[in-house]
């Protein structure tokens, strides 16, 4: 099989359209469905119980909560037919969990597995903090790439990162999955992963540009991508293997974390090929952009 020159960039128009469609859907969903923020961000109470036997319907529990004058609550199965999670948002609906548990104990036999209360103040602060973390992470990366490569690469990487983050957020919004702290951690990890991929690809593009100064940009990029595609796929595959194991066997608590990373890794692999290189081509990257300046030393100063 000849992997030395696959025409990756031949379908650049189609992939651009695909990316735009996906991003538009994501943004639309974010505006319409919003994000289903978890307890960590909204504040409120969460109780997870394990009943001694399976129950077929949650109506009885819902009825009990309604009788306590609660209305905006969520009662769901959590992994099995006897694991139940009860969520009551904070604010105008705040409850005393201990009272709720006592009321439930009168009708059901269960063990309390987890009980959380987050004050509304903490929740909104966390949201700001999380957003700040995202922005800080993005900004530091940009500076790093500008320093190590060139602004065209930094722009490509930024677009790729924004693309990945928007798609993961859109995915969570579209399927109304819970967006909690662990998902935020996953998104930050996605940024790291996608950047890792982007840099590996950019590194090779830079190398090929420097080797053959006079070749056509598209050919050079195609050659770079072809050389790297084996590595890119293997790395994504091994990471996905671990993540899928985590999703299936890691338990309910980290399933959303795994989903976010799986979507992010797929999107990150795609974006490091198409978004980054597309941006480079659109910005008409040339070998002059990557000439070794006198100040730049190839040695990193690292062992």
């Amino acid at each position, binding site marked *: 099989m000849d992997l030395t020159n696959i025409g990756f960039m031949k379908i650049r128009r189609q992939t651009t359209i695909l990316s735009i469609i996906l991003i538009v859907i994501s943004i639309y969903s974010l505006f319409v469905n919003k994000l289903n923020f978890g307890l960590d961000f909204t504040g409120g109470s969460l109780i*997870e119980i*394990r009943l001694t036997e399976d129950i077929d319907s949650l109506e009885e529990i819902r009825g009990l909560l309604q009788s306590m004058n609660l209305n905006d609550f969520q009662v769901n199965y959590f992994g099995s037919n006897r694991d139940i999670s009860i969520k009551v948002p904070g*604010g*105008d609906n*705040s409850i005393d969990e*201990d009272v709720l548990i006592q009321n439930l104990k009168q009708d059901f036999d269960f*063990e*309390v*597995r*987890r*009980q*959380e*209360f*987050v*004050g509304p*103040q*903490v929740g909104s602060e*966390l949201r700001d*903090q*999380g957003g700040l*973390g995202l922005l*800080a*992470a993005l900004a*530091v*990366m940009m500076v*790093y790439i500008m320093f190590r490569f060139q602004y065209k690469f930094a722009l490509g990487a930024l677009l790729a990162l924004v693309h990945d983050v928007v798609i993961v957020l859109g995915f969570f919004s579209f399927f109304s999955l819970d967006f909690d*702290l*662990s998902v*935020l*951690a996953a998104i*930050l*990890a996605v940024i*790291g*992963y996608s*950047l*890792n991929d982007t*840099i*590996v690809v950019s*590194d090779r593009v830079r190398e090929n540009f420097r080797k053959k100064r006079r070749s056509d940009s598209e050919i050079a990029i195609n050659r770079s991508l072809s050389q790297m595609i084996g*590595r890119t796929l*293997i*790395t994504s*595959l*091994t*990471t*996905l*293997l*671990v*993540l899928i*194991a*985590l999703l299936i*066997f*890691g*338990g309910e*608590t*980290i399933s959303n*974390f*795994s989903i976010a990373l799986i979507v992010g890794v797929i999107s990150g692999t795609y974006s490091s090929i198409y978004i980054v290189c597309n941006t480079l081509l659109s910005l008409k990257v040339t070998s002059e952009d990557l000439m070794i300046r006198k100040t730049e030393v*190839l040695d*990193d100063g690292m062992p």
Partner: protein
Amino acid sequence: MVVGVLLLGVIYSMPNIFPPDPAVQITFNSSGGSFNDRVVEKIKFNAEKEKINFSSVENDEKSILFRTNNYDDQIKLKQHFEESLDNNFVIALNLAPNTPEWLKSLNAFPMKLGLDLRGGVHFLLEADTDLLIEAKLESAISNLKRILRDLSLKPRALEIENTSILISLNTQQDEELLSEAVQSLNGFDLESLNSSDYRLRLTEEELEQMIDYAVLQNLNTLRNRVNELGISEPVVQRQGAKRISIQLPGVQDTAEAKKIIGKTANLEFRLEAANRISLASRIDKFPFNGRDVNLEKRLIISGDQVSDASVGYDENGFPQVNISLDSEGGAKMHRSTRNNVGTKMAVLFVERKSRTELINGIPEVINFFEKRIISLATIQSALASQFRITGLDSPEEASELALLLRAGALAAPMDFVEEGTIGPSLGADNIKLGIQSLLLGLGLVLLFMIFYYKIFGLIANLAVVLNIVLIVSAMSILSATLTLPGIAGIVLTIGMAVDANVLIFSRIREELKNSLKPQDAISAGYDRALITIIDANLTTLIVAVILYVVGTGPIQGFAITLSIGILTSMFTAILFTRMMVYFIYGRRKEIEKLWI
């Protein structure tokens, strides 16, 4: 060097191989008691009588530890103790480490497990700074009044408005005097509103310093209170400017723990108002035993000046609290009581509570102080630094009061802004699931690598396994806490650590295709991939560090294992594999073919 690091890694990760025993720990609730052999034997005997299995018992003067073989026995044992022992004891679930002596002597200990992996209770408390500011302003007003009086300046008005003091002067000429007076008050800014009105505000630094001091003070107090609970390995940490987070592993009863930690209880000692000073503005009315008692507004002392408190019983067998005051408190007490022999002194129990109320349809948490008289007794003689409070309802009340007095009062009231309980069975499940998925993911990656890279894959696999050993030992040495997101971080590093080797190996393959000799292909592969690997890892490390700085709790747990994992993976994936490759291929001059 490589061998040395690996050896260290293996030794310091070893304590984690010995699984801890689920255990139940019994400690005394107050600092007074100690266990002697007779008490220990009796508790042991009772547990044996109930046919609850436990594997061994260890004790020192402060605590007894019952090791059990499984979580069911642990719960049974705890329930048994809760029913059979009185509330002089604190009973907590515990995980007792099984580290062998020779490892302990090397200072090697297992890593700590987070609450999500072992079960327990956590709280986040926030200092209420408004009250702190109010108190500061009140004292500033009384100081200012005194200073102004000395300067013979009489302001038209002097009052607190929100978080500042409003001052109105009669004539503008007095402005100079006023600013002079303000200068001798530290930490205030004077702002002129118009020709006669001024606003006095706390400076930013002063405000910050004040809150900082109060939170530090509270941190200390809360540590004392938590220590009084007698739970092993509690964590009391400051989080941000105004918050303190508390983690109590093994505790299951939030209500009980909250009672002790959250109580911002304090005591006030006041004299009953004699009839001659019954000015309404100087007295407070409190109900006591069905009638109203008038107390002076002025305090003799408050609970802060109590240096020790213990439970005792009087000659009739009623509970009492014996109190010792510090020297300043003793002097004040003496001064106030020596001229008031025959007057009654009241002890007020001050508790901060909160309720939610609808104000214009919006629920708001309202904090208020509930004060009640717990004792009203005639002063028999001048009191000094040692005295006692009688008239308490029950021994429980006495021991709780003594505990709170001993552990100190909070400098600023604190509210619970977050709390949570994780059951021990969920913790055990989380460990099991986390490790299972870790092993499965690892297994899949290892298989794939051998299939794809043959001998080199085998070397990379060895590197990945060593990487996990190194992460575990680094966590143990740093005594970092492993949480569920932390396990997820390790899982992620496995996936990413393989990437470094994939980069190197695919580069070697490429160089072989460019018809380089095997030896040269190996060194070219390592050299050229190195820059890429460092670039890529450094950026991920940047993300991990940002996560650690910006994040809290679970995010930090993830960031710690991710950063440690990146550093150790660079070591194992580059240095270790290179060493192995040279070990296998390095000494032979001519190699026909690489198994890659």
